[in-house]
């Protein structure tokens, strides 16, 4: 896993680099948009951490240019601009997520992992959350060393939950996924699959909690235990 960090504040660059390295990833840290552009041209990165207030150029302009040039890797924008409108501007410019300063190591890594899980050409072929593991290639789910036997529907739900772990997953997204499977649609089928999956997960020490957010959908969250 290789990460490019573009951040102009020296101390922040050091601390962020340290945090990413501690997660076991390789990190290249540069100071300016120009250096970042040069690095991206020669190395295939899996993730870009981009600060918006760069000395030579606005980060959003750089991002727009990179996206226009066909760059597909996930981008996590780090910014002091907290206003919602600006967040939306960032997402419009091609950011995959937005992290407002200040944040701690845990938040940074959680967001980065979430982005990698959601990335289409995932640099993380195996989805991990808490003690849960899921390999989309073999459709095998496990908790620690123990394999979890799942029906196809339950597997589909689990994969979608893991790809959206830590975020509320709207029920309509599950419905869309089910209709793609050619399965019968409707809330009942989904609710049934979710409740069966929940029962199976509850019997295990997954370190996760699957909650129903009524009126919205489902939320797979780490309990930290």
């Amino acid at each position, binding site marked *: 896993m290789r990460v490019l960090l573009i951040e102009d504040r020296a101390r922040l660059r050091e601390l962020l680099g340290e945090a990413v390295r501690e997660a076991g990833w390789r990190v290249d840290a540069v100071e300016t948009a120009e250096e970042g552009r040069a690095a991206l041209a020669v190395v295939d990165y899996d993730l870009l951490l981009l600060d918006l207030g760069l000395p030579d150029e606005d980060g959003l302009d750089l991002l727009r240019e990179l996206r226009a040039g066909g760059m597909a890797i996930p981008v996590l924008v780090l910014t*002091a601009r907290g*206003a919602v409108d600006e967040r939306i501007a960032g997402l419009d410019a091609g950011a995959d997520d937005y992290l407002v300063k*200040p944040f701690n190591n845990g938040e940074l890594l959680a967001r980065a992992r979430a982005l990698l899980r959601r990335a289409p050409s995932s640099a993380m072929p195996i989805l991990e959350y808490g003690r849960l593991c899921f390999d989309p290639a073999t459709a095998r789910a496990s908790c620690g060393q123990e394999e979890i036997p799942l029906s196809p529907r339950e597997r589909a739900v689990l994969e979608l939950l893991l790809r959206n772990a830590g975020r509320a997953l709207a029920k309509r997204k599950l419905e869309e996924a089910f209709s793609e499977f050619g399965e019968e649609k409707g809330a009942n089928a989904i609710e049934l699959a979710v409740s069966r999956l929940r029962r199976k997960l509850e019997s295990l020490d997954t370190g996760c909690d699957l909650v129903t957010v009524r009126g919205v959908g489902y939320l797979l969250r780490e309990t930290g235990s």
Partner: protein
Amino acid sequence: MAARAVPLARLIGRRIILFTLLAMLAQLGVIFFDYYRDDGELARLLIEQETGLLARGTSLQDGQLIYHLPHDDLHRYVRRGSGYFARVRTEDGAVLFSGCDLDCEEHFLPLNVNPPDFWSRQLRPGKPLSVVGGRTVQVAGRKVLVEVAVIGDRNGKIWNVLGREVIDHMIVPMTLSLVFVLGGTLLSIRAALAPVRRAALAAEALDPMNAASHLETEGMPREIEQLSSAVNRAFIRVGELIRSQKLFTSAIAHEIRTPLAILKLELGHVDHPRARKAEADLDELTRFVAQLTALARLEASDSSNFVELDAETLALETVEAMAPWVYEQGCELEFESDGSFRLPGIAGLLRDAVRNLIENAVRHTPRGTRITVRVTGTGIISVSDDAPPQPERRVSPETEGAGIGLQIVRRIAGLHHGRFELRRGSSAGTSAQLEFPFSNKG
């Protein structure tokens, strides 16, 4: 001030009438003085008036000219000792009427004299007037001579003469000019004020929350255009202030947030309970900075960039985004909707309002509380909780940053022409309610 404001047309109309009356009074004085001084002219006019009145009594009956007094007022011409004498005769000397004794006959023209069209002679200079004269009138193609002698004018007929002169030379022309001047003035005031009225209506409709609003100055009289331009300049200045405040707040936010980020990352490397405590304090500080900048940003927001929004989508998105945090805090979150509504607004601010209310609910209730965000088709977004009343809140209002969160919500509601209300139930739960003017289209 507004209650005392009088329309310009009425103000000017009143003045014009007042000055016209003054001018009439002055002219009355002048006319009166002019005529009263000129006895000869008065005498002539008196004869003209009296002969004119008397001449109406002549008529033709069976080919014969006859005469009778046309008016009761003229009986003075038959009363002895009245000082008024008259004789009406034909061209060939036949007398049709005579209220005259021998005394006066001698003042009149002899019967055999072919009379002139008009004559008059003053018997005595000064007042009261003593005058004699006559006039020839045509009745049925025949000449009739009306002669009059007024000795002393005891009935004051001279005043009738003066009155007629006043009417002829003053009242009629002055009234005509008053009508035209007043009408013309009122019309031009109306015409000149039309753009002003438009500007006033436009000014009335100006949205103080929209710095892009301004008055159209085209077609205005110069004085009013100056006023409108001054108003527009003030609006431009407000717009500039708003922009500079936006710049200011985002600069402040940037300068504070980056050091906070460094601090927080550094603390992450310190493995000590006191570091965790410091991190929590840092989070509070961050929240406060965020609220301050949100408030400042809100001050700088106006309705010029409103777009049509769907309330249900807005609220649902906010609930989705907030759910992980709410569950992390040990509370539950749910969303209900019985139909959506549309409103013009700024999506970011409205999401902020709902987020603030959810945060507020979490912070003021014990763990395990269920928080419900509800959208009703009648223009209401509410955030309520099912917590019993808390004598001891988890966070006291003092540490809440003086309730900035709710203040922000109130401002956001106000900016969107809505209302914010916080209802603390006596038995269960608090309900925060945002009520907006809405449309049900779509």
